[in-house]
């Protein structure tokens, strides 16, 4: 169900950066949509690929995020990690995606490449429960330390599982 009115941008040539990544990692799934270049890399080659792309000029890590494809029609994997890269010199952008699955979704941390990834990966761990190996300080970022669930997963209900009602109440006498 793609929007047919805007196909002109989708015929853009594949970026040379994607071609370079393919040379290093073998053939990859890549696409262009609305003028945005995207490439999917295997999770185990993520760090290596991003290091290569950083050397090729993508010096700014704009965002690290994740999508839970649990209820997505036709999805083959559960979690899709998204790395949005940009170059401050040429203003190019590239979206790198990698898929991981239950029961132990794990991927290498990119903190060695970009310090910007530190909090972004902590947020992904907090919200989706994906472990980043090699992360210096993988704690929850926004939810309380004692929280057990990962709220942005699709199997977590919008109104929570009653955690709010069970927070310990501190009275003045016991504080």
């Amino acid at each position: 169900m793609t929007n047919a009115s805007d196909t002109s941008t989708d015929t853009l040539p594949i970026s040379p950066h994607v071609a370079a990544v393919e040379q290093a990692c073998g053939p990859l799934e890549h696409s262009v949509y609305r003028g945005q270049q995207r490439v999917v890399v295997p999770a185990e080659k993520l760090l290596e690929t991003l290091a290569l792309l950083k050397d090729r000029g993508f010096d700014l890590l704009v965002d690290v995020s994740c999508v839970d494809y649990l209820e997505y029609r036709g999805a083959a994997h559960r979690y899709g990690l998204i790395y949005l890269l940009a170059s401050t010199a040429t203003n190019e952008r590239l979206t790198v995606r990698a898929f991981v699955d239950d029961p132990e979704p794990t991927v290498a941390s990119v903190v060695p490449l970009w310090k910007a990834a530190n909090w972004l990966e902590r947020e992904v761990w907090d919200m989706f429960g994906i472990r980043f190996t090699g992360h210096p300080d993988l704690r929850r970022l926004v939810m309380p330390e004692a929280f057990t669930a990962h709220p942005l997963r699709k199997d977590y209900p919008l109104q929570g599982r009653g955690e709010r009602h069970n927070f310990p109440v501190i009275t003045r006498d016991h504080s």
Partner: protein
Amino acid sequence: MSIAPAEHETRPETRSEDYLWTLNFGPQHPATHTTLRLVLKLEGERVVDAEPEMGYLHSGFEKIGEHLTFNQYVTVTDRMNYISPMANNVAWHHAVETLLGIELTPRGTYIRTIIAELARISDHLLCNGAVGLDTGAFTFFLYGFYQREVIYDIFETLCGARFTNSYTRVGGVSQDFTPLVIEKIRSFLKTFPKTLLDMERLLNRNRIFVDRTKGVGLLTKEEAINRGATGPVARASGVTRDLRRDEPYLAYADLDFQVCCASAGDCYARYLVRMQEMRESLKIVEQALENLPEGPVNVGIDQRTSLPIKQQVYSTIEGTISHFELAMSNRGFEVPCEETYAAIEAPNGELGFYLVGDGDDRAYRARCRPPSVQNFAMFPHLIRVPTLSDVVSEHGSLNIIAAELDR
């Protein structure tokens, strides 16, 4: 209970970190501006270490984004960076329109450009005003806040709301500019440069202010890029990245403006960049207002993408049908099963949304990329050497908004 003699006689060993004093800065403190917390390790007045903590204002905005339609969610974006809600509205619907492939009308793009720039001015006024306030310049803050009121008045005349505007819609905006709005913006354009000049005369060479901000919170260009800084914080460190120029969206390609940069990378440079950006924003607003195209403000009802204006709903059959269909679930927008990222240069930096569509008229995933997170994450890096009083000016110059930080 007897005390073991060995323990009693020898003095406990002292280590240097025993003299460190831990100070909780926030979550409720006037100088944090919003609910966030810094755990500072102090040695006398020197800050040895700082650990930022966030999450006190976490409201699950991204989760809510998966349950509200594209038009409904704009009310939530108001509450992200509530210093400049209009810019968030523009960012959200810019992202939605990128996903849906909707092209705005010329008048719609110009109107959005104008309100985004007014939002930038009001954001910078508050941010710089707060830096002034924290370093003891109360008059400066009030000068800024008075002008913010004028911008609020413009927004109130425009859409009825002063603070949480929820002004944009998919494919357009909720209200067209009236002659009164244009007149109010014109009068603001006339009066504001004088205030800006007054503000600069108050602080630019103010000895106390310069002493407290110059050389404080240094951020080099390499660190700024590596730590993902965007917006005025990055530009004050010499990163010449401005999405308005580098990836022109809305009407910015038609307008003439400068990207304001500094190379010092300290709090004073950030202050100067913001002051200068307000001037550039004035230029943009003026050009856009004088060249405001005529014609419809929203995408036509025949395209079935934007909600028709009430006049059309009540007086034409096309309007009624279009409104009815768009309001019905599963008859509204044609959403591709695709993923896009679109960002704008918000006052604070790059504000983007990564949207995943699955054919439904609400996002499957609505990831918000807020600029505040990176600014706050680099706080410990900026804070190593200075004294406690520098923490306040550094914090102010980063313009961290907790509601945007936690979402």
